């Protein structure tokens, strides 16, 4: 869902940069002096894992592919603000070094694939997971659903930005983007739940870092 330059208008790009800059500045403030001993390597491996996983496009229907965003995963493990920082690092490197996502569109991309899915993913997970009597089941279902919706809402944000930019009408962009990402999001949900199952089996304590 990396928006290249040209898909969004200059005002939308400018607002995106302002919102992303404000969000990242606040994220630094919110996480500063709060990183525990275990969080330092976890933040490193999450950034590395999300970058690598984003390269692995998986095929979905109709000659289309999708890849993990990873924002919900990062936010569930480290909290939404640290998640925003991780996604920002990934998106900056992708844009600057790999020309994936436009330079001017970096702000909107950080908003769409960082801020929006981190908060949707985190709070939805926090809301759903405790509803299950079996803890593991709650984590699996909660993270899967949260990750799925985080992708769908991110695609809605993207559609709205395209529409405001005048590139495609909202009535066309919204169903098209939400429709294809409702399918891609299933991959996001499955991968997120699988990674958390792996964490639960090997280092269950890492899932306790974010006790609200």
């Amino acid at each position, binding site marked *: 869902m990396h928006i290249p330059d040209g898909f969004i208008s200059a005002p939308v790009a400018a607002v995106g940069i302002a919102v992303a800059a404000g969000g990242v500045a606040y994220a630094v403030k919110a996480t500063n002096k709060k990183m525990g001993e275990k969080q330092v390597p976890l*933040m490193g*491996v999450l950034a*590395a894992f999300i970058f690598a*996983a984003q390269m692995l*496009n998986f095929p979905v229907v109709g000659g289309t592919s999708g890849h993990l965003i990873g924002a919900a995963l990062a936010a569930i493990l480290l909290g939404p603000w*640290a998640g925003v920082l991780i996604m920002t690092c990934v998106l900056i490197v992708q844009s600057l070094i790999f020309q994936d996502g436009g330079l001017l569109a970096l702000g909107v991309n950080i908003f769409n694939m960082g801020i929006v899915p981190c908060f949707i993913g985190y709070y939805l997970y926090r809301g759903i997971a405790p509803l299950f009597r079996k803890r593991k089941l709650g984590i699996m279902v909660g993270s899967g659903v949260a990750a799925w919706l985080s992708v769908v809402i991110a695609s809605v944000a993207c559609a709205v930005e395209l529409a405001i930019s005048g590139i495609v009408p909202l009535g066309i962009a919204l169903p098209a983007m939400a429709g294809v990402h409702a399918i891609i999001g299933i991959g996001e949900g499955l991968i997120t739940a699988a990674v958390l199952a792996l964490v639960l089996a090997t280092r269950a304590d890492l899932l306790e870092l974010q006790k609200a």
Partner: protein
Amino acid sequence: MKFKWWHGALLLALLLAILSPLASSSPDGLERVAEDKGFTGAALEPFFEIVPDYVVPGVTNEAVATIIAGIVGTLVLFGIGYGLAKLLRAKGEA
């Protein structure tokens, strides 16, 4: 050096990077919508190119070029994430 949990996690990320040539090359969700709705052409060329499309320039074998790009990117992001977390870590923690 003792093997720590995150060494395993980093190895897993590097394994994914090595598998990256297997990724589907079909357009992603946004690219699909752009093609179907006819606004692909609106995309501007990047201002500069370093490793476009995750293929290291100058390497003839595209799979190898993709793997190198994946490994370098994965290690760079590990370094950035780790370094940033260290800067933000709680006082008194090692």
